[in-house]
C-alpha cells in the first residue's frame, strides 16, 4: 500500500462579508470539483482533497478524502469575522495529522498544495501562526497559492502566498471571478494528477495556474 499521494487543501474564507453571491459561487462550484476530480481515475488515484472553512473560527468541512469515495460535498455558510490565525493553525494541525496518517499507511506523500481564498482584511495578528505553517523545518510545509477578492488587501494576500498570489481585478463580478477560481483549482488538481503534466516524478508535480481570468497574478512575497 505505498501509493503516491498529492494532497490538496482548499482553505476558504466564510466570514459574514462572503454571504450572498461569493459563497453561492463557491458552493455551486464544489459539486463540479467533486465530479471532475472524482470521476477522473488518473487523478483520483493520486490526489486527495480537503476543505477547511474559516471565519472567526476554522473548521474542517471535508476531511482529506479520495473524492471518488465522497458522496456529498459540504457547503460553506457565511458568518462571523476573518481570523487568519484560526485558519492557519487549523490548517497546520490538519496537514500534520493527514500526512502522518498517510505515511503510517505506507504512502509516499508529496508536498501538500493549499488554495487559500479570502475576501477581507484579517482582524487578528496572524503572522506567528503563518510562520509555523510555512516553517521549513516542519517537513510537510505546504505550497500556498493565495487568492484575494472583495476587500482583500493585495499585500496581505501576497504575504500569505508561498508560490503565487492572485488578486481579483474587477474585470469580472465576484461570482464569475470565484467560478474562475474554482476552475483553476480543478485544473490544477487534474493536471497535477496527470503524469504527462509531470516533470518526471511519476505524476506528482504541482501544476499551478499561470493566469486566472478576473484575477491579476502577483509573485509571492519572498520571506
Amino acid at each position: 500500500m505505498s501509493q503516491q499521494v498529492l494532497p490538496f487543501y482548499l482553505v476558504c474564507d466564510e466570514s459574514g462579508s462572503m454571504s450572498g453571491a461569493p459563497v453561492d459561487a463557491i458552493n455551486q462550484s464544489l459539486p463540479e470539483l467533486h465530479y471532475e476530480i472524482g470521476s477522473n481515475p488518473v487523478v483520483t488515484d493520486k490526489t486527495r482533497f480537503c476543505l477547511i472553512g474559516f471565519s472567526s473560527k476554522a473548521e474542517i468541512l471535508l476531511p482529506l478524502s479520495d473524492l471518488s469515495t465522497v458522496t456529498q460535498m459540504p457547503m460553506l455558510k457565511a458568518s462571523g469575522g476573518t481570523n487568519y490565525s484560526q485558519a492557519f493553525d487549523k490548517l497546520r494541525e490538519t496537514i500534520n495529522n493527514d500526512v502522518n496518517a498517510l505515511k503510517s499507511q505506507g504512502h509516499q506523500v508529496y508536498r501538500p498544495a493549499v488554495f487559500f481564498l479570502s475576501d477581507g482584511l484579517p482582524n487578528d495578528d496572524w503572522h506567528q501562526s503563518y510562520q509555523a505553517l510555512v516553517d521549513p523545518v516542519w517537513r510537510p510545509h505546504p505550497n500556498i497559492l493565495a487568492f484575494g477578492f472583495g476587500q482583500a488587501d493585495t499585500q496581505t494576500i501576497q504575504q500569505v502566498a508561498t508560490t503565487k498570489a492572485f488578486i481579483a481585478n474587477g474585470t469580472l463580478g465576484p461570482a464569475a471571478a470565484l467560478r474562475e477560481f474554482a476552475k483553476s483549482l480543478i485544473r490544477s488538481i487534474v493536471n497535477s494528477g496527470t503524469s504527462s503534466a509531470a516533470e518526471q516524478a511519476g505524476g506528482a508535480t504541482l501544476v499551478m495556474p499561470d493566469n486566472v481570468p478576473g484575477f491579476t497574478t502577483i509573485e509571492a512575497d519572498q520571506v
Partner: protein
Amino acid sequence: MPQAETGTTPPAADPSGVPTAAAEQGPAPDNPHAGESPMVRQQLKAQVIDTRPELPPLPTAPQPVLPGLPQIPQLVDTRPSPEPPARPHQPVGDPEREAPRGVLSLAAGGKIEPEPAARRQSVAAGPAAPAAAPPPQASPLGEPVVLIGNPKLRSEPRAFPEIGERVPDSIVDGGEVDGLIVRAASLRGDDHRHYAETRQDSFGLYAMTPVPGGPVFMAAVADGVGSETWSHIGSAAACRLLAEEIGGYAEAMLDPARENRLQDNCQELMDKVAGRLAMEADSRDLNKKQLSTTLVGCLFGPAAPVRRAVMFAVGDSPAYVLRARDFQPVFTVEQEEIASSGTNALPTQIGRVSVRVAELCAGDMVLLCTDGLGNTMRTPAVRRQLAEWWGEPGVPGLPAYFWQLSFRAQSYGDDRTAVCVWVR
C-alpha cells in the same frame, strides 16, 4: 491467483454517486489539457516529504570498497536457502515454475547449484539438455496482479494517440548472447493509455560483434521527459545513438587496467550522444529540450575470466543487480527531501554521469528500468514479487515477462520499461 479488483468495487467510474447538480455538467473531458485556458507547468516540483526514513531500507548491499570506481562486491554466502520461499502472489500458471530451463534449472526440490563456475560450465555443455527437459505447460496468465492499492484507473488502451511518430503501446523483446539471457519490455503507462498519449520510454538491446575478450552486449533504457511533446522521439534516439557511439569506447570501458579513465570515457560518450541528439533536434526543427530524455546503459563483457559490467546513467532511471533475491541499487539514490530542479537529462543537462562497475556471477540479474518501475519498487511487496518472478532460477518466457511487468499499482500511471539480463 491474480488479484483482480475484488471485494469492494470502487465507485469511481460510476457517476450515480455524484450529486445531481454535478452530473448535469456532463462527462469529464477525456483530456483536460485540450482547450483549457493556459496552465503553465511550473518548475516547482512537488517534493516528496520525508519519505526516506519511512521507506524500508533498500537492499543492503555492502558499500563498494574499491577506491575510485566502486564495484558491486561479490556475495558468495547469501544464496537463498534451498527451501523455496512463499509465493504470496503466485499467479495462475507462472511459467517459471512449469518450464525448467534445461541444466540451469532448480531441481523440483529446490536444490541450487553451489558454484557459479560450475554453472558456466553447465552452459557450455548445454546444447543437448533442452531435449531432456519436460515441455512447458500452457497456462493462462489472467489479468495482471494488483500489487499496490486498488487502482480505479483501468489498464487498457483507449483512443490511438494523435501524435507524429507515435510508438506502439508496448514492445517486448528478448534474446541470448554469450551466456546472457535477455528479457525486455516497454509498456505504456495507464495514465498515457487513459489520455490517449504515446509511450515515452524506450529501450535498446545490442549484441556486439564477438571479438576475443571484447564486449558482448549492451542494453539501454531511456525515459523521455514527460512534459516534452517529442520526448518519445528523444528516448528512442538516445538508445539508438548510444549504440552507434559506444563502439569506440566499449573495449576501454571494460578494461580493468583503464578503469582510471572510465569516468572520463563515459562522460565523453554521453557528450557525444548528447551532441548527436541535439543535431537530431535541429534536423527536426525542434528545440533541443523537446527531445529531453534520461539514459541508463549497461555494457557487458565476456564471461571469462570474470563477467564485468559497466553501468552508466544520466538522469534518474535506475539500475539494480538482483542477487540472492535481493535488489541492490547500482547508483546512489539521491535524497528527495529538498526540492530539486528536476532530473538530469540529455541533451542539455548531462551533469556528472553516474558510473559503476560490477563483477557479475552466474545467477545474477541486471535490471535497467525507468522510474515508472523503479518508483513502485520502493514498496516492499513489489520488490518481493519481482524477486520471486525474476530471482533464481527464473527466466520467464516473453509472454510471462510482459504479464509480470504489467502488474497494477494505484497512483503509478507512468510508462514502465525494464530490461533484465540474467547471467548464466
